């Protein structure tokens, strides 16, 4: 006797949507509207006071966006989700819901450069400080926790160096300290890893990347696992104390396993407003329909690229958790059994100059500031995505000047290789590059 609830691929196509409630429309309609009619004054009052569910204003929620939220939530195995305008706004909203001025976060050092800057430069403006810990330094996460620490944040596979955080072990540290573990799972998507099954309490994504796969739209999401007990200590007054903004409502008491998302929407979207456009939600939904098919091809192409690069005379080193000798290979096989994703970092012989020449001479691979597109993408992080970091921060984040970040696409493998051969040939010729 087994439950007949729908499985991953079915949920990718159907979760969050019933045609019978939408004029029979097989495709999810785009509700291009700002606001929603109230039945009467009593109905309006009830909606505004969270007495009943429904839509008020598209900054707070929108029916098309709601389908996306439920779909990602179903795929991640979460209780609730809140879609945002971008992955960065999902992270900002999460931290602003979790923390107050005077609070502290423990954060993995190997992150997307924008996220590093958020924790390093922007959040201190709000009185929220951060201690960075190298992703492999599991004990370091424990040592960095202070009495005012409100959470641990990290990318499972760090951007761009591909170092893994030991999520199951770090989650035990977080649980012992009575604080949530927040994982940015953009690189994995729920197809490769469902962080709630490994101890995470909150998950954020940039949906712009593999979840969309088409490079057309910005979007982010916060997903709640419903696993964290906000009432276990007095660290989280935002969740447990009466909230003046809703007549003394205690989110933890009233909403339990969905309290964080309810708070993030009720306060965060109301006051900060990083809402997702319904057209963008619809574009992302299209991508999710083929998520597992695309991720399989991304991963198989990535494995071939790792082998090709590892044996190339112009390549100094290759980092991908599938690569022989990668320090995190064993951990990756345990928590990423379907594949370790399609992000590869490699060092090009000849350093920064050679890297610039390579990038300027590949034609099929696109040089741009994104990852997870269906097309192969390349960038030189030290001069682009992570260029706002100083030397010391670059080094601490595991970046080197010879590093090329490669997001392997879905093209025919031979075509990617032919393109790369052109790049490597050009990289052997000296040229001028800007100094920083």
């Amino acid at each position, binding site marked *: 006797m087994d439950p007949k609830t729908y499985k991953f691929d079915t949920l990718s196509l159907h979760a969050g949507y019933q045609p019978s409630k939408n004029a029979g429309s097989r495709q999810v309609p785009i509700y291009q509207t700002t606001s929603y009619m109230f039945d009467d004054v009593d109905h309006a009052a009830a909606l505004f*006071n*969270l007495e*009943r569910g429904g839509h008020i204003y598209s900054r707070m929620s929108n029916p098309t966006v709601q389908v996306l*939220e439920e779909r990602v939530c179903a795929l991640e195995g979460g209780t*609730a989700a809140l879609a945002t305008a971008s992955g960065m706004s999902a992270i900002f909203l999460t931290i602003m819901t979790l923390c107050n001025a005077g609070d502290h976060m423990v954060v993995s050092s190997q992150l997307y450069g924008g996220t590093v800057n958020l924790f390093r430069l922007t959040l201190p403006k709000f009185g929220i400080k951060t201690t960075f810990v190298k992703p492999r330094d599991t004990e370091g996460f424990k040592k960095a926790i202070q009495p005012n620490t409100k959470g641990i944040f990290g990318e499972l596979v760090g951007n761009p160096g591909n170092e893994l955080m030991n999520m199951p072990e770090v989650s035990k540290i977080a649980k012992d300290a009575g604080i949530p573990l927040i994982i940015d799972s953009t690189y994995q998507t729920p197809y490769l890893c469902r962080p709630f099954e490994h101890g995470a309490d909150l998950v954020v994504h940039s949906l712009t990347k593999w979840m969309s796969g088409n490079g057309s739209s910005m979007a982010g999401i916060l997903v709640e696992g*419903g696993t964290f007990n906000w009432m276990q200590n007095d660290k989280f007054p935002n969740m447990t104390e009466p909230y003046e903004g809703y007549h003394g409502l205690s989110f933890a008491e009233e909403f339990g396993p969905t309290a964080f*998302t309810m708070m993030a929407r009720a306060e965060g979207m109301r006051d900060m407003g990083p809402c997702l456009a319904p057209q963008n939600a619809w574009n992302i939904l299209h991508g999710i329909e083929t998520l597992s098919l695309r991720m399989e091809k991304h991963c198989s192409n990535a494995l071939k690229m790792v082998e090709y690069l590892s044996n190339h005379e112009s390549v100094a080193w290759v980092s991908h958790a599938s690569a022989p000798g990668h320090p995190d290979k064993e951990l990756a096989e345990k928590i990423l059994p379907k594949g370790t994703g399609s992000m590869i970092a490699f060092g090009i012989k000849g350093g920064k100059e050679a890297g610039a020449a390579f990038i300027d001479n590949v034609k099929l691979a696109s040089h741009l500031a994104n990852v997870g597109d269906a097309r192969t993408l390349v960038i030189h992080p030290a001069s682009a995505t992570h260029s706002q970091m100083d030397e010391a921060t670059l080094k601490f984040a595991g970046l080197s000047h010879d590093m090329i970040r490669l997001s392997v696409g879905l093209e025919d493998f031979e075509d990617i290789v032919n393109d790369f051969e052109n790049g490597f040939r050009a990289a052997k010729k000296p040229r001028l590059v800007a100094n920083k």
Partner: protein
Amino acid sequence: MRFKVRGIDTFASTGGRPFDKNKPLMIFVHGSGLSHMVWVLQTRYFAFRGYSILAIDLPGHGLSSGESLKTIEEMGDWVGDVIDAVGCKEASLVGHSQGCLVTMECAKQHPEKIKTLTLMGGAGAIPLNPELLELAETSNTKAVDLMMDWAHGPAGHFGGHPVPGLYHLNVGSMLVQEKKEIKDTLGVDFRACDNYKNGFEAAKKLDLPTLCILGDADKMCPLKEGKKLADHIKGSEVHVINNCGHMMLLEEADQTLEILKSFIGKHYPLKK
């Protein structure tokens, strides 16, 4: 709100308003393994419109202390004591699933205290599938998965939660597994339901306004069982929600609230 019932630290949500014993009291009783949180889309509405609300956590459930009560009869009597514990003389009861058995039993044992009865997803008897019962009593999480599967209709399995962003199946699953061992909550509750044989007898003795809200896609307490129970209750009012499973209070929260508003407004109105 926390208060003592039989010396046990008991929690009840008051729907976001301070409890006032001078206002008409409505008590909401959750189903097997669940807690006060299932009622949020009904309780806050009534709390902000003049009623005093107690969405209780039965002993051993949710935020209440103590051990789970082992029989429906004990639970029914305990709900009667809740009314005394908060200094009230009477209440209107709303139950869901197992909560229907509990509230009927309470009304049978304490007829003088109960003014109206609302039964959501109820039946006169709730015999458990033996395999499901065993899974729950051994804290096997598969029991929760099966319960979530059978308890939800299309809204649960596809989506479309009334509260944007929430996903039915996983919310329910986490409510059951929150903080407590499955065997100590769901296991005890399922056994209590399975053992309870007095539902129809209790139903026949009811002499108060009673509302039955049923889902036509309910697999836990099928529609025909709900109707059979309603047939045993004198003058009961029956509403069937189409395309809805056992969790009508969440799956079709708006319809459920509208039906309840109409019933309470007619039979348990605010005093002018």
